[in-house]
């Protein structure tokens, strides 16, 4: 085995893992607060990618500049989905909560198909082909930026939840819904905000991915699945777990290409899922039910 290649793959895996972590953070946040699994998560991410892609094509706005705008668009989308659909299904059994959200994913996916067509698109942004050599290891600049921004956004979300009043209300509602209602928190509104924040997080992650892989309407559900695996890996509803789980999955998928063809990378993530379910069903960091 070529040690340089291995090092290369490890670094690439970690960099990609940071973005996985960010996608999963949104999913974990939504689960942690409302106990709902957002099966439209990847599709929401794709929506943000198309918004960013549009701004790039129409206004030549670099994705890194449109990141906030695209995330804001998905924030609004998430807020509306929570207010109109998810708030109605919170008290139903889990199996019934799955359907409306899967449906939402299908609707978003087909809307993307309708608006932007089935083609794969790879916007050539200013940095998309730039690379950096560190000794024998080649690093894509856009991949490095994506990783750094993903970690920065993750830290911002942690600070938001720890320090701001809305953040504390989100944690309170996640901890004890009855208690939150009784101190006078408008829990429905906090739920809307939480779902929107989770959506915006995955939206931001999507924009970071834009220079790294071709965009198509059908890529969403792969990412829903990836995020789901990461969340189970780290512990359902555990935000640190989401980040670490993302890094682990990114690393595993990347290093596995040493032994397996790249098209089989999902074998790795599913095997990881099976192993975790067997030996540590509560996730690496423990989660909430």
């Amino acid at each position, binding site marked *: 085995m070529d040690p340089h290649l291995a090092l290369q793959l490890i670094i690439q895996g970690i960099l990609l893992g940071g973005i996985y972590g960010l996608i999963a953070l949104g999913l974990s946040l939504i689960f942690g607060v409302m106990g709902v699994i957002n099966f439209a998560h990847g599709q929401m991410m794709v929506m943000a990618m198309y918004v960013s892609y549009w701004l790039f094509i129409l206004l030549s706005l670099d994705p890194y500049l449109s990141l906030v705008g695209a995330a804001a668009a998905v924030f609004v989308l998430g807020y509306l989905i929570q207010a109109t659909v998810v708030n109605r299904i919170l008290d139903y059994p889990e199996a019934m909560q799955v359907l409306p959200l899967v449906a939402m994913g299908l609707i978003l996916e087909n809307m993307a198909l309708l608006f932007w067509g089935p083609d794969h698109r790879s916007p050539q942004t200013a940095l998309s082909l730039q690379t950096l050599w560190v000794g024998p290891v080649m690093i894509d600049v856009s991949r490095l930026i994506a990783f750094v921004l993903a970690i920065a956004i993750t830290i911002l979300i942690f600070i938001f939840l720890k320090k701001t009043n809305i953040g*504390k209300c989100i944690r309170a509602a996640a*901890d*004890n819904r009855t208690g*939150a209602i*009784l101190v*006078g*928190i408008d829990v429905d509104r906090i739920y809307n905000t939480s779902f929107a924040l989770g959506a915006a997080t995955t939206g931001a992650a999507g924009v970071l991915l834009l220079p790294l892989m071709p965009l198509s309407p059908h890529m969403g559900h792969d990412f829903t699945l990836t995020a789901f695996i990461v969340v189970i890996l780290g512990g359902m509803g555990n935000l640190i777990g989401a980040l670490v789980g993302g890094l682990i999955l990114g690393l595993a998928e990347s290093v596995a290409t040493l032994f397996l063809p790249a098209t089989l990378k999902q074998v790795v993530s599913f095997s990881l899922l099976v192993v975790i379910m067997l030996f540590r069903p509560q996730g690496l960091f423990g989660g909430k039910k």
Partner: protein
Amino acid sequence: MLRVEGIDVYYGDLQALREVSLEVNRGEVVAVIGSNGAGKSTLLRTVSGILRPRRGQIMFNAANISQARTSRIVEQGISHVPEGRQIFPTMTVLENLEMGAQFPRTQKVQQETLAQVYAIFPRLKERRSQKAGTLSGGEQQMLAMGRGLMARPALMMLDEPSLGLAPLLVSKIFEIIQHIHRQGTAILLIEQNVFHSLKIADRGYVLENGQIVLSGSGRQLLENPHIRKTYLGL
């Protein structure tokens, strides 16, 4: 101050309260006693706006709050310290208390109120940076009451504050309730500890099968033969 007028409350088709009326005046301690399932918690949950009365109305300071949102009801000065405490276990004691002050009116005086709460519950001050879930049952009850006080209520409703506590702590909690009352907060107390609660109550109501069957001053009720037999086992 609080006037509940003939409310009927249902869980689905099941009627939990029938034409319940009661009143809490400024500066009073009012106890509602009754056995498990009599509808005591239902009554408080309806006043808080978590449940809605199908008939009748709830007036607070001349405003009809029977259809108001819980956040509005809390803002107007009713704090509900619920059964089972319902604190936020992964947040610190201080954060739990901060969550009690949700509105501009209470946030403006938050530091002052916090100092008062710490004066009543020194234990909470000692434990302020500790996660609430690590507190003992008695401390969690104090935290729930402290969180309720952070809303600077005119009326504090307490649901089974002594449930599951050691006898010494029970007396302590009742002392604290009286202390809060002396500082000018009216109290609506729901208890299975009939003796203790009627002793500190100005007035009391007896709830059986969703209906008020008896009411009177705390002393009258303590001497009532039905209560002595059914609730005190004398």
